[in-house]
């Protein structure tokens, strides 16, 4: 085996310090040494052309390039080898510029160090193996989980680019949380008005043919990786046909069952067949099978809704659950979040005292589409006269959630504005720990609240300073140390927390969760919309608490990244440097599975041996060093190669 050695003088920068002839003289004694050629500037166009011609003519078995940092020019010289018809991985670079010439005082010492590094490269390169950069065909379709603002934005963006999208939503309607809000901060636009164009576009827009919407649906199984995921989606029946129903609502009135409407925080009731709420899209009722007398088995013959329906076949009482398969190239997780249970702070009176509401209950009460038609009122129907809004319920608190959700203060000031319009005589007190209102528009909302004559700002240090009790005349007394104020309505602003769906889906999709339980991003600053599992992207509050603007930005970001990674007509290159398991010698101990954060390793269920998914593997080599049986090979960084390099460097 003959190694061709190229020594780049780097225009004199290297050769002024390192004696190329001396390195040559000492290398010649090595058995693997083939020939030695010095080049003035190997990375220049002339240098690359000369090297390509020389390599093509001499055809060495392996190549060593003594030059600069491989971080700068490894790809350059790999391309030179490829152009000369030599496998690009049969080359090793020796970094004598950054690591020797520039940092060593004496020329003699520098030359000696350069020789040892070159000797190590020669010893290593004979163990190099030709590697292929494989390419695989990919699907450019995307499956999005969650049809809230982020999911809708991503779906529309991808559809507009001509990409096929499967939009999977657990609930019966689109729009997620903000569609249930009367107004969204900071500009106080109405929530449905902001989101309706997105929902209309996804359902009936010029690119809607690219979006398949699956409502009342959940992902139940996932296999594969970036470019070729295979997903099973369980589609639960709505019992009302989305295509034929005209949304007249004739089916609702005859239904004999009323039950609490969870979409309205159980502040109102709905029939077993009903709309989610007035204006919820698609404008098609659905049946809750747990409430329906027929579907729950109590009145198997009841068909009052079907009889009342003027469209034949629209009410489908015999519909069955289906599981559908979809093949996609990427997944986007946009399942939103939950609110911290205010009942975990019992002192504040939630679920204990009438008139104590969570922020979401207040949102629904304030919404024209909500249980009171937008009227803010107490249980006896009167409007409130004094309202307390308590910030940081379960936030910035090591006993509950140590982080700041970043949106609750602004939501509280939004409530202040809503109260000012709807109940102008009401006096509002904000109990706050610290005010968080960053952004170019957001401070206005705070200023308006703080300067309103009806508003009082009361500061507290710890939430345990506050306690709520019912006083003699049926109002709520909030005690803070010695101060006691009476209110007839108290609104609590709970922290945003990861939802149960996030936890379940993260487990199913093998997406990691961070120490707070949100979906863990690849990098918080530079890659917040990629998960650590290649091909699975994140957007919205399943990744972190955030406002609508940031969720929308993340969705567009994820859509852009998916479009860049999966391009129609282009194959997906697979990194040549990845791990490889010798299945015949693997004991199935799973140590490697535990150390890989990319979920690139899995256990073959039949053979009980580890296998590497080369699309997911990033080639870090941790599993290679971890394997107690030594049967994982790190391609291009094999034990044999590194041992030879160590020996060469020292002899």
């Amino acid at each position, binding site marked *: 085996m003959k190694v061709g050695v190229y020594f780049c003088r780097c225009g004199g920068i290297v050769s002024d310090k390192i004696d190329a002839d001396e390195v040559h003289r000492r290398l010649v004694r090595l058995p693997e040494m083939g020939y030695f050629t010095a080049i003035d500037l190997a990375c220049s166009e002339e240098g690359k052309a000369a090297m390509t011609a020389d390599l093509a003519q001499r055809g060495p078995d392996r190549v060593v390039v003594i030059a600069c*940092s*491989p*971080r*700068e020019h490894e790809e350059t010289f790999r391309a030179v080898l490829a152009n000369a018809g030599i496998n690009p991985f049969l080359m090793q670079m020796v*970094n004598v*510029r*950054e*690591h*020797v010439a*520039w*940092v*060593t*005082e004496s020329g003699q*010492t*520098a030359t*000696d*160090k350069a020789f*040892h*590094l070159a000797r*190590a490269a020669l010893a290593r390169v004979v163990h190099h193996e030709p590697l292929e950069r494989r390419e695989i065909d990919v699907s450019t379709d995307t499956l999005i989980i969650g049809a809230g603002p982020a999911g809708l934005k991503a779906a529309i963006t991808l559809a507009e680019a001509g990409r096929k999208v499967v939009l999977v939503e657990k609930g019966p309607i689109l729009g997620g949380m903000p569609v249930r809000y009367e107004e969204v901060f900071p500009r106080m636009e109405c929530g449905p008005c902001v989101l309706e164009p997105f929902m209309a576009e996804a359902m009936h827009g010029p690119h809607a043919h690219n979006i398949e919407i699956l409502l009342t649906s959940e992902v139940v199984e996932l296999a594969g990786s970036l470019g070729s995921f295979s997903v099973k989606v369980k589609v639960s029946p709505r019992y009302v046909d989305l295509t034929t129903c005209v949304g007249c609502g004739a089916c609702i009135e005859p239904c004999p069952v009323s039950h609490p409407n969870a979409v309205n925080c159980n502040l109102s009731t709905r029939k077993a067949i009903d709309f989610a709420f007035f204006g919820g899209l698609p404008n098609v009722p659905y049946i809750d099978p747990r409430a329906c007398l027929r579907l729950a088995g109590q009145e198997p013959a009841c068909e009052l809704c079907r009889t009342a329906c003027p469209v034949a076949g629209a009410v489908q009482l015999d519909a069955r659950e289906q599981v559908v398969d979809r093949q996609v190239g990427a997944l986007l997780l946009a399942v939103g979040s939950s609110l911290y249970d205010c009942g975990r702070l019992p002192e504040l009176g939630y679920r204990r005292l009438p008139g104590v509401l969570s922020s979401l209950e207040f949102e629904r009460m304030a919404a024209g589409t909500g249980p009171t038609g937008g009227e803010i009122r107490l249980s006896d129907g009167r409007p409130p006269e004094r309202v307390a809004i308590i910030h940081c319920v379960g936030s910035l608190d090591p006993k509950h959630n140590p982080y700041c959700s970043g949106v609750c203060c602004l939501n509280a000031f939004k409530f202040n504005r809503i109260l000012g319009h709807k109940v102008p005589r009401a006096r509002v007190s904000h109990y706050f720990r610290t005010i968080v209102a960053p952004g170019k528009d957001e401070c206005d909302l705070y200023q308006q609240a703080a300067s309103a004559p009806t508003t009082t700002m009361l500061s507290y240090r710890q939430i345990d300073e506050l306690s709520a009790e019912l006083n003699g005349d049926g109002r709520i007394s909030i005690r803070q140390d010695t101060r006691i104020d009476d209110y007839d309505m108290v609104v609590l602003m709970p922290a945003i927390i990861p939802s149960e769906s996030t936890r379940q889906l993260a487990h199913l999709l093998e997406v990691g969760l961070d120490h707070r339980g949100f979906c863990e991003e690849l990098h918080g600053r530079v890659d917040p919309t990629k998960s*650590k599992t290649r091909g699975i992207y994140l957007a919205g509050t399943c990744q972190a608490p955030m406002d609508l603007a940031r969720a929308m930005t993340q969705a567009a970001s994820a859509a852009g990244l998916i479009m860049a990674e999966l391009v129609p007509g282009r194959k997906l290159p697979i990194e040549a*440097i990845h791990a490889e398991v010798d299945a015949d010698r693997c004991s199935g101990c799973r140590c490697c599975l535990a*150390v890989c*954060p990319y979920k690139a390793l899995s256990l073959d269920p039949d053979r009980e041996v580890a296998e590497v998914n080369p699309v997911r593997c*990033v*080639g*870090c*080599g*941790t599993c*290679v*060093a*971890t394997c107690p049986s030594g049967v994982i090979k*790190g391609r291009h*960084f094999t*034990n044999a190669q*590194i*041992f030879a*390099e*160590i*020996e060469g*460097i*020292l*002899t």
Partner: protein
Amino acid sequence: MKSQRDFEPKIVGFLCNWCSYAGADKAGAAQTTYPANVRVVRIMCTGRMDPQFALKAFASGADGILVLGCHPGDCHYKEQNFRMIQRHRLFLGLLRQYGIEGARCRLDFVSAGEGDKFARVIAETVEAIRALGPLRRRPIVQPNEEGDLHHGDSRA
């Protein structure tokens, strides 16, 4: 016999590609001079650092080992340098059993921007190993006919 001051230790540096190798490149670009005793083997991540590499280096004539990775929390591969930190602690225990001082296997963290720190760590390590003197190796222990383990008599 050479005095300790003249002793030029041989040290093998295992550097991760993303932070520490880049930090070494940065020291180069800034033309910060440092001793030439450390010869670098590039690995993609310190997570790849197999304790066998250090043993191989000691067996092949190294007087010291230097493992440099990304700062904890900054690993290019998320958390793999923590695997190296765990392994390093175990490895020091193993070295003790071989009678090799723990200071001969230093683990430190150098980011891509820390060219100065790289040069400083190199200088400190070279001084520390120089102070320890050359690594004293014993012949490989072979069981005798009775199966007992006896150290060879040469301690040179």
